[in-house]
């Protein structure tokens, strides 16, 4: 197979706020089409990691390229799925409008809407199975329904990179599974890269190629089974962390204490 452009490339990237180092000397190359989970305790800089990729946060040192380009130069080709946040009931916006904004909401001026815009919007809504409630004001939908439309919004421009920031938060287990599988379906179809920030690995575990685990300013990137084991995480946290497998679900124990411990020390 011919060598494809790296989706994301970090070189000696360091990010710190004042004295607090979020991560140091990050050297990471993410291949096109990979599904990357970004894990780590609260405050470890997972969301900031996405912000860096969007060009909304500068690195303190080092460099980062997205598809070989400087960050922030081509955000139109990046899909972004934010945390589920409830919309105001009276917000005068339907799911369809939200998807539409994902397609051309960044364009200024009197844009003539081409015929294929409506087709693209319909296709995205259809792909996430949200046609039945796409014309309902977004604030009246359930969290899971809103997130389906969020995914339609993210994929409508057929981006080759999807950045997801805790998109499963506050969803029930069924909705979590549905949303995770929709994201993976899109990745498969378009050979897109997915970078998925989460604190809960289990719903996406079947799809994940590699895990980027950030803690205490350190990081490790490897396959899930190599990262999510007691030895690796204990080394990362600098204290005892245990990973247990309960009927196929991975449960990580001891991270909260380790993070708290570290904060006291720092």
């Amino acid at each position, binding site marked *: 197979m011919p060598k494809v452009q790296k989706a994301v490339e970090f070189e000696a990237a360091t990010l710190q706020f004042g004295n607090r180092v979020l991560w140091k000397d990050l050297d990471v190359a993410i291949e096109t089409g990979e599904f990357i989970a970004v894990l780590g305790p609260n405050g470890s800089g997972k969301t900031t990691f996405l912000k860096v990729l969007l060009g909304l946060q500068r690195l303190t040192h080092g460099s980062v390229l997205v598809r070989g380009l400087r960050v922030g130069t081509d955000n139109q080709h990046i899909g972004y799925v934010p945390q589920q946040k409830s919309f105001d009931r009276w*917000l*005068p916006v339907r799911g369809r409008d939200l998807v539409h*904004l*994902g397609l051309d909401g960044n364009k200024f001026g009197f844009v003539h809407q081409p015929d294929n815009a409506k087709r693209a919007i319909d296709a995205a809504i259809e792909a996430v199975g949200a046609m*039945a409630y796409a014309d309902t004001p977004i604030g009246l939908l359930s969290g899971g329904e809103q997130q389906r439309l969020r995914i339609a919004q993210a994929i409508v421009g057929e981006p080759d990179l999807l950045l997801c920031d805790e998109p499963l938060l506050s969803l029930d287990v069924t909705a979590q599974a549905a949303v995770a599988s929709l994201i993976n379906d899109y990745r498969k179809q378009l050979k897109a890269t997915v970078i998925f920030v989460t604190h809960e690995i289990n719903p996406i575990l079947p799809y994940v190629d590699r895990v980027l685990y950030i803690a205490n300013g350190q990081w490790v990137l490897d396959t899930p089974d190599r990262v999510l084991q007691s030895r690796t995480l204990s080394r990362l946290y600098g204290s005892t962390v245990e990973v247990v497998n309960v009927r196929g679900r991975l449960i990580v124990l001891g991270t909260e204490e380790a993070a708290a411990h570290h904060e006291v020390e720092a």
Partner: protein
Amino acid sequence: MNLAQYLTQAFAQHALLAGGLVAIACGLIGPFVISRGMSFAVHGTSELAFTGAAAGLLIGDNPIAGAYAGSIVVAAVLGALGSRERERDSTIGVILAFGLGLGVLFLSYYHGFATQATNILFGNIFGVGSDQLFALLVVALVALTVMMFIYRPLLFASVDPDVALAKGVPVKLLGIVFLFVLAFTVTSAAQIVGTLLVLSLAITPAAAAQRLATKPMTITLLSITFALVASIGGILASLMSGTIKPSVLVTMISFGIYVFARVIGTPPTRGNRNIIESSQPKQT
């Protein structure tokens, strides 16, 4: 004089033209004022137009120029101080209270016609001269052009700021641009209905429109229509009555439309209630 005779008079024609222009601009910004939670900002900027107008009266006997200058100052201060909604509200409260005090101070030093002062507060559409009409026309056209140019990104930034930011929309800059458009529009409207009653053109029509539609573009068009009906209707009704001030009738009609919309408009509902979110992959 009857209505037909009035309509041949320059003052009535000026009033209708000015009222129409201001209504279109107000109707256009209204839905954004609501979705961005800026009703209080409208109120604040309009009351502070009073301070500017009083200063204008005192300095150069020109309340209109003073009002516009004041609105630029207010927009700049609000833009610089508070970006978050809650923070912004308290900032507006603080500036509003101080500004009104300042306005009263200016007026106490002003020894011209007292009606000039009440005109600022309650509007004087029948006193619109051709200079002023020209100023209104320019402001309305600029507001319209800017709003049409930024409509889509502004909608994105208003309803979905996180994703808008990720898509490269300059969310913060748009907020400031909108603040200036709002300040100018509101100051223009203040000349028609007065600073105290501006909300009846800048908010009420949009609020009524939201009761009747869910599509952003439809809401905007309805909002403009309602503002036009209230403004033109109020001026015509005032001409017919001969005694009642137009600003009073503008607010009455505007409120009437809102009540009507609340009564006939059904609250938004889901297309289909029994679709429960979940596992079935595709609903048909």
